[in-house]
């Protein structure tokens, strides 16, 4: 066989025995559908035995293929009535041809894939993509029930504190007005404002609120025309009396 010397040198270039068979088939330069499996088997076996003579190492799967081809050849040349469960020589040859066609198809497909314009090789995506900024937006999973439950819990827990709030010990303007309300008809003469302070010694804060609220209440009474105020000098004592009935029409700001 003329090609065998070359094939020996090229053995390592084959991707296995099927690939080698396929290469040999291509040497027949005919359509894969029309190749002679028998001739192919002969070529392969001749090639393997040539290598053996040269004492070259042959990978096991090449030897397995050689053995199988020898078997196939015997089945093709010496047809014997096949047993039921065994494929005929023709069927085996057909299966091999199919394998060759399949590998051929895959090799071609690979080449066609590789010949396409390839991304990053022939065609390029944008080199400097800004990207789309992803702004994470937290979505909180809270139901109305959670809200009310939390509120109830919180109130229960904090309840004791709420109930022990000290009442404010302050004298309000309302308190002062109520006090004047009871006395107003009975103050015909000037009376010092401090004389309306009935409470004693309930704390500095309380005394200050007493003074402020009484003064504010007295001013309010003057504004609505129910009382009169008098002060003779700056920081001097302040006097109050009921307004005279005739003075009721007077307006004071």
């Amino acid at each position: 066989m003329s090609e065998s010397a070359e094939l020996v040198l090229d053995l390592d270039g084959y991707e296995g025995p099927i690939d080698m068979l396929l290469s040999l088939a291509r040497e027949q330069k005919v359509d894969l559908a029309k190749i002679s499996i028998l001739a192919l088997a002969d070529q392969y076996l001749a090639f393997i035995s040539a290598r053996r003579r040269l004492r070259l190492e042959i990978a096991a799967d090449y030897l397995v293929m050689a053995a199988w081809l020898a078997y196939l050849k015997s089945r093709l040349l010496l047809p014997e009535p096949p047993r039921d469960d065994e494929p005929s020589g023709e069927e085996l040859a057909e299966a091999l041809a199919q394998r060759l066609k399949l590998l051929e198809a895959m090799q071609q497909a690979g080449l066609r894939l590789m010949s396409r314009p390839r991304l990053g090789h022939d065609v390029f995506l944008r080199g400097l993509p800004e990207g789309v900024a992803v702004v994470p937006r937290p979505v909180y999973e809270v139901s109305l029930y959670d809200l009310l439950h939390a509120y109830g819990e919180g109130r229960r827990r904090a309840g004791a504190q709420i109930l022990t709030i000290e009442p404010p010990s302050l004298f309000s303007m309302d308190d002062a007005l109520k006090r004047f309300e009871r006395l107003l008809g009975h103050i015909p003469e000037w009376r010092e404002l401090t004389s309306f302070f009935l409470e004693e010694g309930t704390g500095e804060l309380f005394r200050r609120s007493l003074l402020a609220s009484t003064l504010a209440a007295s001013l309010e009474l003057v504004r609505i025309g129910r009382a009169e105020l008098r002060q003779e000098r700056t920081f001097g004592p302040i006097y109050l009396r009921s307004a005279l009935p005739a003075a009721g029409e007077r307006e004071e700001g």
Partner: protein
Amino acid sequence: MSGRAQQLRLVEALIFAAGEPLGEDVLGERLGDPAALGEVLRELCELYAGRGVNLVRLAGGWTFRTAPDLATALRVERQVPRKLSRAAVETLAVIAYHQPVTRAEIEEIRGVALGKGTLDLLLEAGWVRPRGRRDSPGRPLLWVTTEGFLAHFGLDSLTELPGVDELRAAGLLELQPLARAAGEESGSEG
């Protein structure tokens, strides 16, 4: 295709594919016709003016950038589900029932100091916002709930908060002025 059109295409593709703004020296060299580059770039700039992508000079080189006016439209908001802490839920509830309410009052009602960031979190969630200040010493911020709060909890108005009447009747919703050391009064609603 004319020589000029081909030059345009090449420069366009070069700038597009480059991982950094391309200087005019590089572009001129790749074009093989440095003298023509100025005109090519000018034409490309015009071609992309007013488009969603513009050709711009950046860092001494040429690059494509998305149009600045589309920046907002290009941002993607991704929703990240989160659990709200108990403290945050409770704080939200206190604000909902007692608004407008100061931070100090929230702490008073809950009987515990507000953790760092709890209000921030509710603010970020869009459920509370400050509205005005209490007219009292320090003029503390007042917190109220938002429309977003109502929407999230499926409420038409605050009066729909279940149980609000019952709670008020029980006197649990009256924030009683506490006697404070300096004797300040809590102010009125603004």
